[in-house]
């Protein structure tokens, strides 16, 4: 990047008032091991603004009761809050109907739901499930389990040394035996943004259903499931400033209608006798048991918060941070960036020569810099690069250039220690 481009990138940082934004995240204002915390582990889990914390607090202080059953005031308020959150998720993803939004624990649970309820009834031995080499374990293991249960085969779209998908063989990989294409929108380990529109169009042309794992996408970019034309879209709240334990599955209504329930229990039924149970309508058919109501309320607040900031502003700020950090790290001798795709979200995986990432993680932590060191639940990616682990810095909109300075200083301290 030239100096002029870098200047432009830095200027776009000012579209958000970052000092004000940071005041919304009380956890960021602390010392760790005597240093100002630089939280650069957002791809693992993001921090929560007071707006989310207060929404959950308010719910438990004023509105808490079970949903969809009581006739009393609090139950009605809890139901309104819960269904209001569903409506916000619908808007966030631009789904057509609230009925297409199923609350789940997170992306992992949503993928398991689709594997077992949508794919399993329609798959037989020899059929194929197509994923890619850069998936998170959450989008590998549920399909492997399904293959073990049914004799189906797991097929994998290969990757290149830059961390991009090699789509040259996609036309053959999408074939008459393919029962689903399950693909991440953004790689958690490398930051690669996959060319989903092109891939989905190819699958669609052959009537192959598509599930998109959006866990790493929703915190960083505008998502429109109708424009993507995917059949299923899954994400986790905790990576987008909402509480842990809540996430959502989007599914096209006709598909969800045709699917059998995944788990049985209360709330997902209309009537129960020992002879017969009548299942509830969408979306409740897939929400057995009392849901994570407060979590859903928090997720709704997180969506409001992100939309108030403007998702385009968020994306611009993070992209500027990624560009600056990438350039700074490229200038440090002995540092190798893993994952150099042209289209990336704000994830920066790297290796420091002769230093194991776990040593990197410990040394950084002593300087207040929180990063992830490990395989990022993407061991096939690590195997591809012939490494056991990487160090990974991942940025959110509340991160600053000063925190990139802290990152660079931490790298230099590590190199001095290991010199």
């Amino acid at each position, binding site marked *: 990047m030239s100096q002029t481009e870098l200047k432009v990138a830095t200027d776009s940082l000012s579209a958000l008032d970052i000092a004000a934004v940071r005041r919304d995240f009380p956890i960021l204002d602390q010392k760790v*091991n005597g240093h100002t915390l630089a939280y650069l582990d957002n791809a693992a889990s993001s921090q929560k603004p007071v707006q989310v914390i207060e929404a959950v607090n308010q719910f438990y202080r004023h509105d808490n009761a079970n949903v969809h059953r009581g006739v009393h005031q609090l139950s009605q308020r809890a139901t309104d809050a819960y269904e209001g959150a569903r409506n916000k998720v619908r808007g966030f993803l631009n789904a057509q109907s609230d009925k297409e939004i199923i609350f789940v624990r997170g992306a992992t649970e949503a993928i398991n739901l689709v594997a077992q309820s949508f794919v399993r009834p329609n798959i037989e031995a020899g059929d194929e499930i197509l994923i890619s080499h850069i998936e998170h374990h959450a989008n590998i293991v549920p399909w492997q389990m399904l293959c073990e249960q049914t004799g189906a085969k797991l097929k994998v779209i290969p990757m290149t040394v830059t961390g991009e998908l090699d789509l040259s063989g996609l036309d053959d990989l999408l074939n008459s035996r393919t029962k689903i294409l399950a693909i991440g929108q953004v790689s958690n380990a490398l930051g690669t943004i996959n060319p989903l529109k092109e891939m989905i169009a190819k699958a669609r042309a052959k009537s192959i259903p598509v599930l998109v794992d959006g866990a790493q996408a929703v915190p960083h970019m505008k998502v429109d499931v109708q424009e993507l034309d995917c059949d299923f879209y899954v994400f986790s709240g905790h990576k987008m400033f909402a509480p842990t334990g809540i996430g959502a599955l989007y599914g096209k209504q006709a598909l969800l209608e045709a699917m059998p329930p995944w788990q049985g229990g209360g709330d997902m039924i209309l009537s129960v006798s020992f002879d017969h149970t009548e299942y509830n309508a969408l979306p409740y058919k897939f929400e057995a048991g009392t849901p994570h109501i407060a979590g859903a309320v928090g997720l709704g607040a997180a969506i409001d918060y992100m939309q108030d900031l403007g998702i385009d502003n968020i994306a611009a700020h993070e992209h500027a941070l990624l560009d600056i950090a990438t350039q700074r790290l490229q200038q440090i001798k002995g540092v190798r960036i893993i994952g150099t795709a042209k289209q990336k979200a704000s994830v920066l995986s790297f290796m420091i020569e002769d*230093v*194991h*990432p*776990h*040593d990197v*993680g*410990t*040394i950084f932590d*002593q300087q207040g810099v929180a990063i992830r*060191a*490990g*395989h990022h639940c993407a061991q096939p990616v*690590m195997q591809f690069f012939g*490494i*056991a*682990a990487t160090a990974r810095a991942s940025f959110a909109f509340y991160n600053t250039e000063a925190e990139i300075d802290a990152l660079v200083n931490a790298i230099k*301290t590590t190199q001095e*220690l*290991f010199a």
Partner: protein
Amino acid sequence: MSDLRDLYQQVIMDHKKNPRNFREITDANHMAHGNNPLCGDALVVYVKLNGEIIEDVSFQGSGCAISVASASLMTETLKGKTLEEAQTLYDNVHRALTGEEEGGELAGKLEVLGGVKEFPARVKCATLSWHTVHAAVDNDHDISITTE
């Protein structure tokens, strides 16, 4: 930084850069694979037992500075020891690093491992080679152990 210097002190860095007994023992009569899937540390420990005496012990593999240095120190310490002495050392290391029980003084070369206790996330790195050598002498066949 003082804690960091304690952890990554000269002895640890020396063993990391020049691990001792980093080789295969071709006529080993015990061996084991140790893995820490969380960080990808993987090592093989070879032991040549002569009766009750550890005549030779070595390791190969890859891992972080703490796990490599700990394995290197382990081989230096155990060579020539009886199985009983080795068991006592193993128990001491375990106690000293986990702090689960009283005791566990680390004497001599092993003293440098004491700093790891202050870094709970890294204790498994330091104990991997010790668990692996324990598994090796306890079994007549190659066995794999996993810690995390």
